[in-house]
């Protein structure tokens, strides 16, 4: 079955790699929607996660979609779509028409990672307070200020 | 003698004793303080808890409600800026007044009737119908979204139970051939609940709806509209709004006892000979037991939905009350009563 998955993706021109738990497809942003529609056709009809990973040394943010399926033969695998977008202007098309449950996952990724999903109907603050300003908190240049464990005032 | 004797005579006269001492104001206060404690204790017993305990521990926290009441009394009564102040303040007071007023028309014991009118039953029910209006006024005066939601629910609930309440009661009036509570009691050789169970059932459910107790505490709907019409109230006004339902319920249980459970019979003759009002003890005991049963329902049921309550009112209780009317007519025709 897993071989089929890789083969089926190859057939449509997507380079796929089976890594045990996940089948990874690395993509250009332009081909994302096509790949997502193919994933739905293959049975991965909802997302388990949308995440952004900040790689400041490369100047990119990697957006990773994990698609999941409840079918018995597919449930052991996750289909992983990986897209790299420039760090200073991260833009991607929204996938809520393909995967409806991307609605909150994309909103969260915009909120915490600053990736703009074009066409998303409500990019409002979700977890952060509505008046939040400053760098998206999950990026690496956002430093967490921690208080010392001990009181450092005599 | 003289002045003191006159005062005692006034105090012991039915016109004073009925509304002020028993079953009126003072008894209402005692019932109010005790029944909430009883309700919480019953619920606690069912729910594997202890319930109120620490206020007067030897008696199991029996004066918890007194403590709560005092706290309400000394708490600041906040009148929010945005309210209609006159309505906001007056409504709970009017509501409490109209909840207590009907007690003036409840006979206590044989030949011991505060205000003997031939229409005490409709007067009693009629005075109770004012309370929903005052609750509507509270909701409107509060100028709060939750309150207005609650007020509208109260209006709908009135639709559900009011017709049923009146028709069921008139079915009994038809059966006994009188509109007076005292004469109804005298007419009950067999208790009304056995004579016309349909009427009793409809009246019972409708009176729970009217008092807004579970499973029909829709108006307060804590989980979606905070406290309904009472959301903005604090201090003693909140205490009043909380008490209205219980006072109303107590009045209704007295009426229920008079109409269906043969009222004060059997009269303990010895107590009656000491002072006539003491002969009404059975009336109180029956009403209180009924009250305890109703507050026990809280441990068994949740809350019905508004439209379900309306459906129960119109599809089940209303036909039931109509059946009760015809059943009464039937009983009259074949001459059982």
């Amino acid at each position, binding site marked *: 079955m897993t071989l089929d998955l890789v083969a089926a993706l190859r057939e449509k021109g997507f380079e796929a790699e089976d890594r045990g*738990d*996940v089948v990874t497809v690395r993509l250009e942003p332009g081909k994302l929607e096509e790949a997502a529609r193919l994933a739905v056709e293959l049975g991965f*009809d*909802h*997302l*388990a*996660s949308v*995440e952004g*990973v900040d790689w400041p040394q490369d100047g990119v943010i990697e957006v*990773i979609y*994990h698609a999941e399926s*409840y079918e*018995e033969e597919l*449930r*052991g695998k*996750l289909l992983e779509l990986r897209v790299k977008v420039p760090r200073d202007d991260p833009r991607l098309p929204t996938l*809520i*028409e*393909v*995967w*409806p*449950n991307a*609605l*909150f*996952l994309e909103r*969260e990724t915009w909120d*915490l990672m600053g990736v703009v999903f074009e066409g998303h109907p409500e990019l409002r603050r*979700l*977890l*952060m*307070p509505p008046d939040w300003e400053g760098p998206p908190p*999950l990026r690496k240049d*956002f430093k*967490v200020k*921690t208080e010392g464990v001990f009181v450092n005032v005599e | 003698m003289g002045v003191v004797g006159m005062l005692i005579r006034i105090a012991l006269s039915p016109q004073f004793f009925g509304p002020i001492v028993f079953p009126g104001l003072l008894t209402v206060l005692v019932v109010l303080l005790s029944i909430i404690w009883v309700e919480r204790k019953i619920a606690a017993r069912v*729910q*594997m*808890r202890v319930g109120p305990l620490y206020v007067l521990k030897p008696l199991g926290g029996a004066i918890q409600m007194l403590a709560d009441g005092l706290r309400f009394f000394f708490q600041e009564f906040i009148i929010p800026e945005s309210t209609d102040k006159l309505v906001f303040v007056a409504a709970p007071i009017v509501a409490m007044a109209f909840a207590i007023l009907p007690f003036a028309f409840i006979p206590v014991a044989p030949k011991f009737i505060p205000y003997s009118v031939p229409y005490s039953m409709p007067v009693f029910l009629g005075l109770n119908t004012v309370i929903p209006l005052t609750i509507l006024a509270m909701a409107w005066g509060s100028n709060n*979204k939750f309150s207005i*939601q609650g007020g509208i629910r109260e209006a709908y609930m009135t639709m559900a139970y009011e017709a049923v309440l009146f028709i069921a009661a008139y079915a009994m009036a038809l059966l006994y051939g009188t509109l007076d509570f005292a004469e109804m009691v005298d007419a009950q050789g067999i208790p009304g609940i056995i004579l016309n169970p349909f009427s009793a059932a409809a009246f019972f459910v409708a009176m729970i709806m009217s008092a807004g107790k*579970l*499973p029909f*505490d*829709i108006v307060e709907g*804590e*989980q*979606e*509209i*905070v406290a309904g019409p009472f959301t903005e109230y604090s201090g003693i006004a909140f205490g009043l709004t909380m008490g209205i339902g219980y006072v109303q319920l107590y009045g209704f249980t007295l009426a229920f006892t008079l109409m269906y459970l043969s009222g004060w019979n059997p009269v303990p003759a010895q107590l009656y000979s000491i002072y006539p009002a003491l002969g009404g003890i059975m009336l109180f005991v029956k009403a209180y037991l009924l009250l305890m049963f109703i507050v026990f329902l*809280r*441990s*068994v*049921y*949740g*809350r*019905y*939905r*508004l*439209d*379900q309550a309306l459906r129960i009112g119109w599809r089940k209780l209303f036909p039931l009350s109509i059946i009760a009317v015809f059943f009464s007519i039937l009983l009259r025709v074949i001459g059982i009563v």
Partner: protein
Amino acid sequence: MSSSVVTRRLLAKEGDESVYEVFIGPQHPASGHMRFIVRLQGDVIVSVDPDIGWVHRTMEKLAETKESIKAIPLLERMTIIDSQNVTIGYVRALEKLLGVEPPPRAKYLRTLLSEINRIASHLYGMGLAGIFVNHSTMFMWCFGDREVWIQLAEDLTGARLTHSYSVPGGVRRDLPQGFKEKALKAIRYMEKRLEDYYRIFFNNPQVRARYEGVGVLKKSDAKRLGIVGPNLRASGVKYDARLLGDYGVYDELDFEVPTMEEGDAMARLLLRGEEIKQSMNIIRQVLDKIPDGPIMAEKYMRLVPPKLREQALKEGRIKFPGIFANLKLPKGEAVARAEMGHGEIFYHVISDGTKKPYRVRVVTPAFRNVILFRFLPPGHRFMDFPPIYGSLDYFPPEADR
């Protein structure tokens, strides 16, 4: 239903003047740490906008700043009522990165605590479902009986709620003496109580009236929206992350994953009752089958100084040397899924070869179920909103992370 119809239903509709907006929460008796903006037309809900994030604690960011093993006590704060199941996924991801497998006895112990936590979590959810229709008895009973399972977990792990029981390579403590008898007694008690629950709650006509036919989630929609946990299975999808065989010993045990076809709020409630029965069944089997042996992988036991190791073997509890917290995560990444009481939790851990994980992505079941607040209530009456909320077993701190 085509996906565009689904998405149209998901979007919050702004109100015009005929729409009455009610703000439920964040300070409100029933909402917990979140706010709903409910838009009503008359008594009918037009749309609900779940405004979450009131208890956002930046779990993902904080996990990046800590040594990998120290993130376990952090992450379990997401769902404190279910802390074994919420961290087992993270532990599994670390184990995959570190290339270590727990010994069989540790796997059994993990399964045992997972199921104890699951029962406690379901009781919590059922209790809330009771109080949402003002059924205080169900609320009190469930929360009272939850104490039984919490104490059982305390016996096993030493903590009532924050167990931090599973660590990479095994578990912290061995089974205490006399645990089996205690657990069996708890199961017998719970079986009796479940019958009481059916009598007073599940078969109560008032409860049936409020929950039946309310908030129906069709099978196809449930799949499409990626709903997880009992909410998914109540719609007839037989999916449970325990079936993946990735963690625990579920592939060696004989248990069923109950499903229901109705998909309404009542089905979601009843399913939790069924799952409690199955969990007790699993606990029984685990206690019967549990093998003897070490509770920590050999690889890590060697790190413990010989004297302490002897003591650990004797007492059945492991006190780790400081070096354990400084485990270097090999470069790479791992995903893990685990079934919590609320549903499937997803972890994705990326490591760049240092002591701290480079990125920890966690998608909690409650966060995945938030979408149902958009999808289910429109078209229902306002008074149906609390039962829908109650039936979803939604846990705000878990969704906010």
